[in-house]
């Protein structure tokens, strides 16, 4: 099942962004996630799936406000949102498959949707472009997280010892 979702990852879009606006904070910071390899490998597959699920979920609707105007994506906000929805569903299925009905999440991983609040509201005016870039930067980072987590989980799940990707 992991293989099904590899294609839905969106890293390719992010590569086109030349400008990397590193935000001090993104809205997804509230979601605790492993930040290094060690932590990631320590985490269980299920945990990784959960985190990925939450990350995707946090961007499912705000991604519609993203303005991606490079040549690769035209009229794309909805596409991203749709793909995120599909991804979320897929991850959910994986969770279901792994859980056997049990939810083995600790409190930190409780499913809490991040507050959208005013974060994603456009301030309007000149701040629009900058705001858009900032959003895109956060989006890019989160997507990369999800990609990494899913990849690690996939490799761990696969029967092949030699998980060469």
């Amino acid at each position, binding site marked *: 099942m992991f293989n099904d979702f590899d294609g839905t990852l969106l*890293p390719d879009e992010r590569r086109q962004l030349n400008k990397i606006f590193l935000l*001090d*904070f993104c809205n997804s910071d509230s979601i605790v*996630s492993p*930040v*290094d390899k060690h932590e990631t*490998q320590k985490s269980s597959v299920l945990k990784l799936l959960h985190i990925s699920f939450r990350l995707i979920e946090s961007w499912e609707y705000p991604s519609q406000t993203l303005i991606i105007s490079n040549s690769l994506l035209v009229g794309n906000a909805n596409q991203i949102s749709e793909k995120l929805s599909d991804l979320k569903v897929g991850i959910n299925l994986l969770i279901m498959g792994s859980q056997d009905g049990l939810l083995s999440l600790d409190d930190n991983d409780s499913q809490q949707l991040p507050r959208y609040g005013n974060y994603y509201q456009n301030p309007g005016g000149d701040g629009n472009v900058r705001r858009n870039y900032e959003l895109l930067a956060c989006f890019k*980072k989160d997507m990369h*997280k999800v990609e990494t987590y899913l*990849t690690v989980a996939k490799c761990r799940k696969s029967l092949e010892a030699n998980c060469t990707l």
Partner: protein
Amino acid sequence: MMWRDVGVTLILSLILPVVAQGARHTPPGKPKLTSCRSPDKETFTCWWEAGSDGGRPTTYSLFYHKENSETVYECPDYHTAGANSCFFSKNETSIWVNYNITVVATNALGNNFSDPVDVDVVYIVQPHTPENVTVGVLEDEDGPFLRVSWEPPSKADTRSGWITLIYELRVKLEEAEEWEEHRAGQQKMFNIFSLHSGGVYMVQVRCKPDHGFWSEWSTASYVIVPDYIPRERSMWILIAVFSAFIFLILTWIITLNRSSVKHCLLPPVPGPKIKGFDQQLLKKGKPEEVFNSLVVQSFPPRSTDYEDLLVEYLEVYVNEKQELMPEGKDLQDVGCLKSKSQSDNDSGRGSCDSHTLLMEKCGGVESKDESSYEEPELLQGQAGSWERLERGDSQVVDTPDSSDGRVKTWPLVFSPSIHGSSDNHHYGTLEMPKQHSTSEITYSVPDHLFPTSTSFPHHHHPEYRDSLGEYSEYRCSRSPSTGVAYHWEARHPTQAHSNFNIRNLERQKEATGLGLPPSRSMEYVEVQKVNQENQLVLKPLSSHGRGPFQVQFGRAGVDYSKVNGVNNDNVLLLQRQREMAEAGQYCNYREKEGAEAERYPTQQQGKTTKDGPVATQLQESTCLTTSGYVDTAPTMPTF
């Protein structure tokens, strides 16, 4: 003066060192972070470059703080990565976290801060070059190919999926200048085809993480491709050899049949076929001679020759020695003329086309068959051979018998004995015939020889059979090249026309040459038989009938024309059988001239019943009498 200069120099010499000394001792210049790189997405290193040295030993220190945190940390490791570098180990490295890094240069006099730099390790990953790049030559049915394989850099953890690397390789011949690059994706092996046999190739590989920088190219690997013949080329060689072989064979065959090929491709130009035309003379370049040979001296008969002509065509009558009409010559003339019809279409052509020509040889050749021959009723059945000369018909009619069923007569061409002037296409002047007491119809009886004779004009018929009696000779028209002119003179009816079946004719006055308005068209009338009365029963030949003419006779095809006789006007009166009347119809030649329209036979004799249809117009406006007409001479006017 000199003291002043010395003083200035001393002062300057004292000041300068002080100033210089002062310059040496300044706070350090501003350092600058040049780059930070992570080879494995687990650790990273930052490098900086020093600013100007303040003249004193300067120390550099790097400080950083992570996002959302104000805690400032100092670089944990300044040495691992070399001078002016800071190495962040795994413990200090956090991914997806912004690092705000600053380098401080410090010396005794002060310090200097560099500009801060934000770093997210995810985005600064640059792996090492792939390792163990091996290149091998493998064989395939299409030829040899290169197989390049490598391994990811040892430090990059792709096994657990922590880093996803994509690879790229490039190949070129050793002596080439441009590299040929290939993306290999995430695979660690790649095949290269279409090699130059015997060439030396260089191969290099590099890799890149999904978000990061390309690694350096690996060291070049050399490989030698063994010699081989490309399959594709060998196929072309085979095809070329085969084609050359085929080509040689074809050339040989063509050479053998050189002449026939040449004949096929370049058909020989037909030479002129003008009778009397001598190519050799032409080649000699004497046109006069050439053309002279074409000219027949005796043609056209000049007026001065009329006498001669006349003489030639004189017929000896047994009975009445009516003088040969002086115009007989005209007749003959005409008769001759007919062949030489001035406006004959066939001038110069041997007059196969001439309506006067009745020769078999010409028969059927001409397509334009204008004149219709009409068989003269005069044919006598018993006479010797009446051969039928019909254009287009090469048969030789058997000897007509008096009571034969069918006697085909050849078309008789009546020279319009009428007109005296050759120019005048009057045929129908009956005057001429009138003048003759006897209409003399001379015709050339095509004897057996006729069909075979080629030069008609020169034919002189032997004397007619004795069976005919009277006729001693028939002369053919003298018109040489223009064909045969048949003249036939109607015998005087009073004479013993025993030879003629046309009794009526004999009885009648002289039958003048029926100068039936000869139009070009002449029709054959076939003598079906000769009845007891020695009448020729004629029947138009449908085959020769010209259009309208035929129509008339369409009904039964058995149309007889009976010559009623020669009327006063020396007109041969033909009588259609159906009428069975004495009616003879003849055309008034006079009407003929120039009329291209049809002519309707004028009923001269009251008794003639004019058949409507009979009066069809022949195309040539021949005067249509009954079935067929006797065309005395086709010296038609130029119709």
